[in-house]
């Protein structure tokens, strides 16, 4: 073959066609196999970017949700008439299914991280807000009296007495919100964000894939939950949250 020859379509044999029947079919090619360990080891790096994206998304969303809910709670702490309004508003937002919410935002923010963050943080508002308010209202009257007796202003009372005492309840709410957010963030694949829902959705018939993607998501939820539990024990070792902290 001279260098100047015009090369038409390459010879067929150059892309090796493998035979995939029965005996030499690898584990992942067999429909019945529940978990292909070798494939998992070889392909684990396919899950790192989705995992890290999901982690980042969860942290941002819970962070924003907490900031907003906290602001609401501080506002409604003295203006108690605001509580039903905020509870109602966050409740309605909580009721809207995340998948629907993504597409309700489609005309406004399109698809992408922005939409995903809005959907996820809005979803956390109700539980965090309710728990902060409940925690603050569960502060014993004696503690408040003691604080006032020491000459604290309202503001000092809030930040030095009431909030620290409400901490277990607040963190309990954060824990629930975080775990839920991790689970829902897998749905953000429909908002074109590459979380663990993406590999899951891409090969929805592959059992090993489902096990890994779901397993990683659940592990993330457990780990973050434990982290928050640990920080609660460290920050507020003197109290346990009441059973009032529920979804």
């Amino acid at each position, binding site marked *: 073959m001279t260098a100047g020859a015009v090369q038409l379509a*390459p010879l067929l*044999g*150059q892309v090796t066609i493998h035979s*995939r029947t029965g005996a030499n079919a690898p584990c992942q*090619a067999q429909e019945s196999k529940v978990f292909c360990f070798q494939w998992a080891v070889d392909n684990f790096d396919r899950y790192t970017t989705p995992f890290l994206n999901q982690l980042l998304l969860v942290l941002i969303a819970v962070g924003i949700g907490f900031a907003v809910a906290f602001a609401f709670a501080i506002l409604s702490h003295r203006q108690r008439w605001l509580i039903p309004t905020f509870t109602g508003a966050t409740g309605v937002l909580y009721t809207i299914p995340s998948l629907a919410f993504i597409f309700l935002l489609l005309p406004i923010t399109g698809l992408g991280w922005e939409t995903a963050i809005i959907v996820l943080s809005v979803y956390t508002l109700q539980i965090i807000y309710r728990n902060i308010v409940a925690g603050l209202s569960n502060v014993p009257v004696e503690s408040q009296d003691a604080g006032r007796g020491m000459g604290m202003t309202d503001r000092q009372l809030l930040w030095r007495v009431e909030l620290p005492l409400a901490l277990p309840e607040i963190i309990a709410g954060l824990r629930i919100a975080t775990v839920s957010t991790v689970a829902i963030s897998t749905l953000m694949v429909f908002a074109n964000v590459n979380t663990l829902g993406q590999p899951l959705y891409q090969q929805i018939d592959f059992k090993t894939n489902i096990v890994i993607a779901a397993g990683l998501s659940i592990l993330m939820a457990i780990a973050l939950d434990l*982290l928050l539990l*640990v920080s609660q*024990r460290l920050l507020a070792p003197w109290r346990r949250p009441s059973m009032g902290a529920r979804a």
Partner: protein
Amino acid sequence: MTGQSRVRAAFALLAAMVIALGVAACGGGSDDNNDTGTSGGNSANLIKSNSANNGIQLTVGSKNFTEALILGNIYAQALQAAGYGVKTNLNLGSETIAYKALQDGEISGYPEYTSTLLTSIFGKEANQVPAEAQAAYQQAQQELQPNGETAFAPTPFADANALGMLKTKADELGVTTISDLQGKSQDLTLYGSPECRQRVDCLVGLQDVYGLQFKSFNPVDIGLRYTVLDKGQADASILFTSDAQLAANPDKYVLLQDDKGIFPSGNVIWVTDDATVQKAGPDYQATIEKVQQGLTLPVMQELNARVDIDKQDPAAVATQYLKEDGYIQ
């Protein structure tokens, strides 16, 4: 568990997680652990990097099913080898979304089937789509050019929707063509993608052109189109003629012949706009048309098989194709 040991356990778990992440992120980089046969044997195929292309940014789009992902990755990597700066957007769900992304300037171009382009986007009837690849390509060009868009030459392989069954079921019913299903279809369950219900090149065509009423139409994700046949839940399923599973199991599945022509066959053409062609220079068209010459039907089925059956990553499979056919080193 005491408070102390719980704290320790939590930190141990966290440390383990961090270590596992670190290992995964740093290790496991190589994907080419398959036999690749003869590689790099054809130096005339090699895509040469042209420094004139270095400042030019292209965004390669594709739809998000296996075949489209492989094609998108092949084109993206080929253009990169030619020296372009390439970004990818390989998550465009189906043709109207992809075409709109092109018109909105979000992507430079994407691979589209001539049949889909003509029927779905330009509203032609299925029987107006030319069966021959070049003729279909010319017709597509005629439709695209008034919009300031254009397409490059078609791939060797073509793909079409198809109505498939387990061979055992087809033999039991004694059917070889879709028309044979008349009088029998009301006892059969049909499975297809959720949008199949509304498409003329799918359920609507079967109902209107063939006059078939099925016992039920059930939507499933296209990733499950063979699973539902294998599990015996589907009597018939909407498949694609270039599917890997068909080549891998030639005696298990059978495609019923589309005698009334509601499933037009389409070669893949790269659809792009004139502005991008101007900006990108001659290597744009040359690279795309060169790299797709190896995509005959058996090759496409093999690449599909590596993703759908061997569960490899589409990007890795694209690299294997490019290396095995000598387009890149």
